[in-house]
């Protein structure tokens, strides 16, 4: 509680030691909002394109995480026991 009271937005870093991975969502959304603003041919499709790209980024990162986990935990011990 004291940490929260002492935190000064935009000056001090947030306390995200165990929840940092939750920032993947806002990061993916921000990238999609800016990128699709200049890429969609018709702005009527903008919202759907942004949500689609956000989902693609998150799914790709989760798949990369799973792949890395399997590689480190199972494949590497087989190669170098």
């Amino acid at each position: 509680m004291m940490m929260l009271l002492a935190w000064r937005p935009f000056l001090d870093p947030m306390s995200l030691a165990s929840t940092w991975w939750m920032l993947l969502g806002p990061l993916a959304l921000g990238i999609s909002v800016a990128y699709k603003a200049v890429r969609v041919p018709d702005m009527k499709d903008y919202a759907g394109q942004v949500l689609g790209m956000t989902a693609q980024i998150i799914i790709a990162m989760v798949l990369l995480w799973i792949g890395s986990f399997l590689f480190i935990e199972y494949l590497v011990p087989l190669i170098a026991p």
Partner: protein
Amino acid sequence: MPIPDAHAAPAGAAQPTLPEEFEPVAALLAVVFPGAGQWYLGDRARGVFAAVGVLGLFLGGLLIGGISVVDRKDNPIWFIGEALVGPVALGVDYVHQHHFKVIDPVTGRLRPANPDEARDPATGRAVKAGPGRGPPYVKALGRVAELGTLFATIAGMLNLIVILDAAWHSPRDPALGAGTPGGAR
């Protein structure tokens, strides 16, 4: 001078692509503020959403890691990417360097204040912290610093795409093909 569009639809296609044209004023405005180039060219929704995305990521980085994530002296490589956000990033760095860092009493160089130090507002020198007077900011470390820097740098890289889109602009809607700057083009 019109630049041939490699992605132009072939003759007889349903939706012809309008040729790209170099727009120096839009390019300049885009460099000054994210999305301003598209706004000037009449693509106002694109300009607003581009600004929301770029500034949202940049301010998000500042919120996550604090002002220390924008630092041209301690973090010059990442600052190259962050500087692409434009004068906003340069201004944040200026404020950081000149109003939040302290002058080391031994070396005379600017550095972040240590946890037991404060900044003398008159001289900018590091002084001992006391009651109600602490460091001007806390330097981000570890993963929070990485994420804050990543957010701010990606914002700059995306703004480069936004600037290039404004500079070599091809109106997506044929109805916006010609007109006066600032109006419907």
